[in-house]
């Protein structure tokens, strides 16, 4: 075993959206917090969006799929048995580096699906319980948007005005209007005006390539500088191998490979996992021991189970007019919640969000985006290209996924990362409810695009490379036999081990999860502060 370090109060594994928010909260309260992150710092100014090969880079080292990127900090994922491929970034800021930054909160009904719709489980907390943390996180992030959205209860003031939606957004908004459907400009974690020392977005387009000018509030440019300023220690390029456990059955630290590849030990009074819905169960399962032979904190057998993505259907409408659709942040335009709630006559429960995305650059346009209708080769190629460039509107049908025991993350028997740590293997298939729900959403998106004047419409009913949202694999609940962590984020079986990422989601809602993930992380942090001395003695502040 390598060198021993000093004991820290709180050790956080993972420096993404949840790890950043949590570390800031505890550091600000004076706790001694260390974070280990397997990836590096990425410089916003190195974003490909200022480089000539910018579009090509989204297929290589800036792909969202770690299996394509194959960077030293990435771990390969066996996704052969999954109908959706998990996407993630390993870096300070986590997947926030490639983030579209659409920032809706989960809605009140999302926390009560068992009571309302008789499926899955209710959360052990409510929208109202989380509301103060949504508000706090919004103030930190700086949310652009417009108050008064009838799809939500009244909400604290948005920090900056809505992002511009351009001719592109106005065109599809007119479609929703014709049909009498709800729509509203998106809440976005992107400054529309200068906020918190970061500039306004300049509408460059491909947020997925990293935000060059820091107008998007990923944790690397927002929470982490503040946390470090308050004394948090962030060690990058450090990959945790396993969580270690003392004779008392409590977590007492981790062993990790440092930036030179040397195996080291770090002791801690509290260990906190913020490694996303794939990385967290992977680490727990890789931390089995005599006391915990089936993986750490896995008395329920649910570590890695109930994996949820959001199943996604993509619908692209092509318009006659040049909509300049490549201008403006790609994932943040307008959203419709018209079909979000359950109506039993539709033949499925729960619903979907219709999220309008802006259109694509020249290369993605030529390749037909993700609906697979590439521009034909041959003599019509150039004419078809100019008919399409900037003229497509995409409606993303983002559906609620329901938790299912057999959808899971487990350890692969052969595949490992470069340090020899077993890789995750994903077993996942969309269920009939999801398929019906997406089909229904696609039909509505087609109606909306048609009403907006699209001259042709194409769609992809099951987008495989859409595993942006990794949820449910260390479920929260009050019953230790039916959940992994309690209502405060502490593992039932290991009381000083916490999980704060999307793993603890009980159900998935049908909104992009980062706002809720960060609110939960701040909620867990606040409860830890309150209960710290009772739980761990006065040695922990």
């Amino acid at each position, binding site marked *: 075993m390598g060198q021993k370090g000093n004991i820290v109060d709180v050790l956080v594994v993972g420096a993404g959206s949840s790890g950043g928010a949590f570390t800031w909260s505890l550091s600000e309260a004076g706790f001694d917090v260390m974070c280990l992150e397997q990836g590096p710092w990425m410089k916003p100014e190195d974003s490909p969006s*200022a480089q*000539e090969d910018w579009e090509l880079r989204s297929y290589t080292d800036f792909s969202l799929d770690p299996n394509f990127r194959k960077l030293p900090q990435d771990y390969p994922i066996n996704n052969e048995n999954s109908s959706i491929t998990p996407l993630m970034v390993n870096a300070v800021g986590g997947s926030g580096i490639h983030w579209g930054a659409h920032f809706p909160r989960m809605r009140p009904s999302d926390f009560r699906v068992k009571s309302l719709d008789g499926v899955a489980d209710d959360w052990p907390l409510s929208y109202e319980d989380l509301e103060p943390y949504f508000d706090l996180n919004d103030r930190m992030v700086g949310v652009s948007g*417009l108050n008064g959205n009838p799809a939500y209860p009244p909400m604290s003031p948005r920090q900056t005005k809505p992002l511009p939606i351009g001719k592109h957004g106005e065109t599809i908004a007119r479609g929703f209007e014709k049909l009498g459907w709800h729509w509203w400009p998106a809440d976005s974690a992107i400054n529309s005006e200068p906020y918190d020392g970061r500039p306004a977005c300049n509408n460059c387009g491909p947020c997925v390539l990293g935000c060059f000018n820091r107008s998007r509030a990923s944790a690397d440019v927002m929470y982490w500088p503040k946390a470090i300023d308050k004394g948090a220690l962030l060690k990058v390029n450090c990959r945790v191998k396993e969580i270690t456990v003392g004779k008392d059955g409590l977590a007492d630290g981790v062993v990790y490979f440092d930036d030179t590849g040397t195996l080291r030990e770090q002791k801690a009074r509290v260990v906190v996992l913020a490694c996303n819905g794939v990385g967290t169960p992977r680490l727990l399962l890789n931390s089995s021991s005599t006391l915990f032979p089936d993986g750490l904190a896995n008395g329920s057998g649910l570590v890695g189970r109930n994996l949820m993505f959001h199943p996604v259907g993509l619908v692209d409408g092509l318009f006659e007019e040049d909509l300049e659709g490549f201008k403006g942040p790609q994932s943040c335009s307008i959203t419709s919640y018209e079909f979000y709630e359950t109506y039993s006559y539709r033949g499925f429960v729960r619903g979907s969000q219709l999220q309008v995305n802006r259109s694509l650059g020249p290369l993605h346009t030529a*390749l037909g985006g993700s609906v697979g209708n590439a521009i034909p080769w041959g003599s019509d190629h150039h004419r078809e290209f100019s008919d399409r460039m900037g003229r497509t509107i995409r409606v993303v049908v983002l559906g609620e996924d329901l938790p299912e025991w057999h959808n899971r993350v487990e350890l692969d028997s052969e595949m490992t990362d470069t340090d020899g740590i077993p890789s995750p293997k994903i077993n996942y298939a969309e269920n009939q409810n999801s398929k019906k729900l997406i089909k229904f959403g696609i039909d509505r998106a087609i109606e909306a695009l048609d009403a907006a004047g699209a001259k042709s419409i194409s769609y992809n009913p099951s987008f495989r490379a859409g595993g942006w949202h990794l949820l449910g694999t260390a479920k929260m609940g009050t019953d230790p036999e039916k959940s992994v962590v309690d209502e405060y984020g502490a593992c039932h079986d290991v009381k000083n081990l916490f999980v704060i990422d999307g793993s603890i989601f009980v159900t998935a809602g049908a909104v992009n999860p980062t706002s809720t993930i960060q609110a939960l992380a701040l909620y867990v942090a606040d409860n830890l502060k309150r209960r710290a001395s009772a739980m761990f003695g006065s040695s922990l502040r």
Partner: protein
Amino acid sequence: MRRQGFVQEMKVVNAELCLLLTSILDCLIPSDGRLPGAGGAGIVRYIDALMAGSEDTKQLFLQGLYEIEAASSELSKSDFGSLAQGQQVGILSSVEANHPAFFALLIENTYKGYYSNPEILRILGFAGMLPQPEGYSLHPFESDMLENVKKRGKRYREA
């Protein structure tokens, strides 16, 4: 001389393959007077790098290119580049149908090479139109568009 120098920089593609690929690429994305064809835009170099990067890809390409060449000699005892445009299109269509994996990879990488080429992007009007650092200007959101949405009322369920 220039072409020879060009070929010498290649890792997999020799002079013969270079001529064949250039003709194929020009058929996939022909010149329209304003824009050069893909064969003239240096995309051969892109394909060469791709083939050099993976033995599987290289074998798939070599096999596919062989099929195209074989079909050309069968059709008119001449190489692909000497065929009339209609004949070239016919051969590529048949390879597209019979060797879909090769053809899809060929198309994908022809487009990737073409639409990331600075000269092509300049002619298309995207030169100096990198997303950053300039970005784009858009008019502000007009909230009076939402009057009817507000009138239609609440769209969430109490829980």
